[in-house]
């Protein structure tokens, strides 16, 4: 009886360094996604050692973190960002690596384009020098973020030295309420188990509410596994998975497709498989979530209040809460609905896929952003998502409502390009991290779903999206 994680692990073991069950294992990597920020030193290291990439066709590269989201025809104005993107271009040219350049329609956030291209397939090990690689686990992959030394290791050897993690299953049973999305599920789980609750674990999400999610929703959920501390999140294969993949450019075709699907069907935990930890949530009880602090576990429901540190007995925890509230400029016991954002960001590898944009557009259609909103922006996850949205007229819906419609990239999720918050500015953001300074020095981030961000844009403060559509 094996878990999905056991199966994915076992099918990639090249060599075990010790006889101990939890020793270091050499694990084969099927797909290596590369972006401009965490790769230059790896390519340099490879060259200095006189080594070559082991398997070029496993690599797909794209620049996403540094790229501007306006006026791409003018190139990248920041010379340091430009050099980093050009370094990726040069490395890919020199070594013959497939790369989607900045002005390619297929360019976008690495965790959006992998699945979109069918470059992420069930049963794969997928790595990228980016913690949100957990996203790809939505396709029953073993997908996790790595550091630059490991990027070099995978380039040179197609393998990684790993220790097997413990296994956790997070069950979400029942039906999600109207207006409740995968983002709310993710934040509710993190609120429950904490930002380190998944540390040392590979997490499988299961249960009827997970099976009901679209692939976009599953990607949102697995994306946030790392915010619960779990390096990898994953979901078993079903019809939703295979229907999403079929016909995508890198997906198998013809006989190979049939053969692949037959194998992919086995990628689920066996009945009775044992997990080291099981957490269960009742779907019907999950409400729209809004973070109030500087860690994703600092989260409340939209009908709740900012907590009061005076009620916390643990000293370290109380100090952290006080520090977070000070940073966020929030008084204890403030109703979440009274919090008024200055900016709205709809984007990121968490929530910039077509379904996310549709959900937000549905809320803002025929309405306009409130007077206190200084900037509301939509940054599609890829050129193809942007194109699709434009075909559906979503760009017009957003523009008419007062949103800016941008070019694809990571943008204000981490503010490496020009899209950022100023000191003290408050943002309703569909991204994944509300850390201090994440969206700009002194910026204050509230993580929410796309529909909740859109609703806050229209109302000028957080509102319960279930009451408006």
């Amino acid at each position, binding site marked *: 009886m094996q878990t999905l994680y056991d199966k994915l692990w076992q099918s990639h073991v090249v*060599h075990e360094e*010790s006889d101990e069950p939890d020793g*270091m294992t050499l694990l084969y990597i099927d797909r290596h996604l590369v972006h401009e920020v*965490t790769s230059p*030193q790896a390519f340099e290291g490879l060259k200095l050692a006189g080594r070559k990439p082991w398997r070029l066709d496993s690599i797909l590269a794209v620049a996403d973190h540094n790229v501007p989201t306006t006026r791409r025809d003018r190139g990248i104005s920041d010379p340091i960002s430009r050099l980093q993107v050009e370094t990726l271009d040069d490395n890919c040219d020199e070594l013959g690596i497939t790369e989607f350049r900045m002005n390619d329609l297929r360019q976008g956030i690495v965790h959006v384009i992998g699945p979109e291209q069918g470059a992420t397939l069930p049963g794969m090990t997928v790595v990228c*020098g980016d913690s949100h690689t957990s996203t790809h686990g939505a396709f029953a992959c073993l997908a996790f973020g790595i*550091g630059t030394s490991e990027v070099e290791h995978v380039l040179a050897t197609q393998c990684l030295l790993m220790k097997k993690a413990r296994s956790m299953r997070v069950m979400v049973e029942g039906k999600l309420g109207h207006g409740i999305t995968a983002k709310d599920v993710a934040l509710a789980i993190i609120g429950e188990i904490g930002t380190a609750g998944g540390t040392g674990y590979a997490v499988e999400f299961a249960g009827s509410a997970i099976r009901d999610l679209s692939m976009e929703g599953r990607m949102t959920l697995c994306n946030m596994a790392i915010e619960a501390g779990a390096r990898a999140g994953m979901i078993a294969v079903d019809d939703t998975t295979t229907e999403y993949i079929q016909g995508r450019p890198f997906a198998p075709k013809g006989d190979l497709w049939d053969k692949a699907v037959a194998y992919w069907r086995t990628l689920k935990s066996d009945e009775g498989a044992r997990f080291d930890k099981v957490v269960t949530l009742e779907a019907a009880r999950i409400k729209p979530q809004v973070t109030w602090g500087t860690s994703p576990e600092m989260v409340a429901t939209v009908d709740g209040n900012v907590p009061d540190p005076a009620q916390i007995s643990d000293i370290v925890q109380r100090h952290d809460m006080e520090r977070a509230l000070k940073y966020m400029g929030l008084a204890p016991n403030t109703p979440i609905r009274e919090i008024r954002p200055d900016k709205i960001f709809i984007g990121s590898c968490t929530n910039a896929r077509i379904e996310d944009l549709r959900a937000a557009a549905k809320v803002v259609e025929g309405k306009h952003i409130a007077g206190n909103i200084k900037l509301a922006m939509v940054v599609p996850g890829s050129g193809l998502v942007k194109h699709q949205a434009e075909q559906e007229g979503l760009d017009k819906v957003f523009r008419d409502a007062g949103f800016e419609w941008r070019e694809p990239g990571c943008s204000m999720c981490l503010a490496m390009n020009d899209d950022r918050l100023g000191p003290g500015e408050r943002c309703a953001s569909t991204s994944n991290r509300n850390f201090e300074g994440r969206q700009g020095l002194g910026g204050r981030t509230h993580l929410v779903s796309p529909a909740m961000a859109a609703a806050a844009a229209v109302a000028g403060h957080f509102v319960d999206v279930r009451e408006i559509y």
Partner: protein
Amino acid sequence: MKKFNFCDGLVAPLDRANVDTDAIIPKQFLKSIKRSGFGQNLFDEWRYLDHGEPGMDSSKRRLDGGFVLNLPRYSGAQILLARANFGCGSSREHAPWALQDYGFEAIIAPSFADIFFNNCFKIGLLPIVLDTHKVDQLFQEVEATEGYRLMVNLRDQSVTTPGGDSFLFDIDPFRKHSLLNGLDEIGLTLQHADRIKAFEDKHRDSQPWLFA
């Protein structure tokens, strides 16, 4: 990779939980294509009062005198004492690079985030997990005693206080061996090149679509 055997070092306490890698090294410094020079921007938003950008002369920037690493008594610290879930968030190896470039050789905490923990071993920076109550004791001692030092011995897997308390820590034997000898892990893995090729052939036979 830098070798690690032992470290007799001055300790600096960073008394907050969930210190994320965005705080350890903010994103604007990740635009560098180099592997060195990140130490001056370690904890940039906490260390300095002004906004830092790549290329700035750090010696001319305004320091936040209240931040622990700016206190004279912790100048030259080599061991960072931290709280739970240190290094959470982004996978950026720039975080361990910055800590090492600043001068830290070991970090002691009750727990670390997985990716950060793993990244440290790749460069010879030693992350040490000790029980919360032991970490609490060390925080109390370091705050009470100016010039407080700890002796970290990797071979014995021990941390020894000036008062003679010795705490043992766990480490994977392979990682320990690599650190003690400063081994090149890529070189080690390439010694298994035949095994990797054999695995790849078998993998191609069973899942040919992965190689199409």
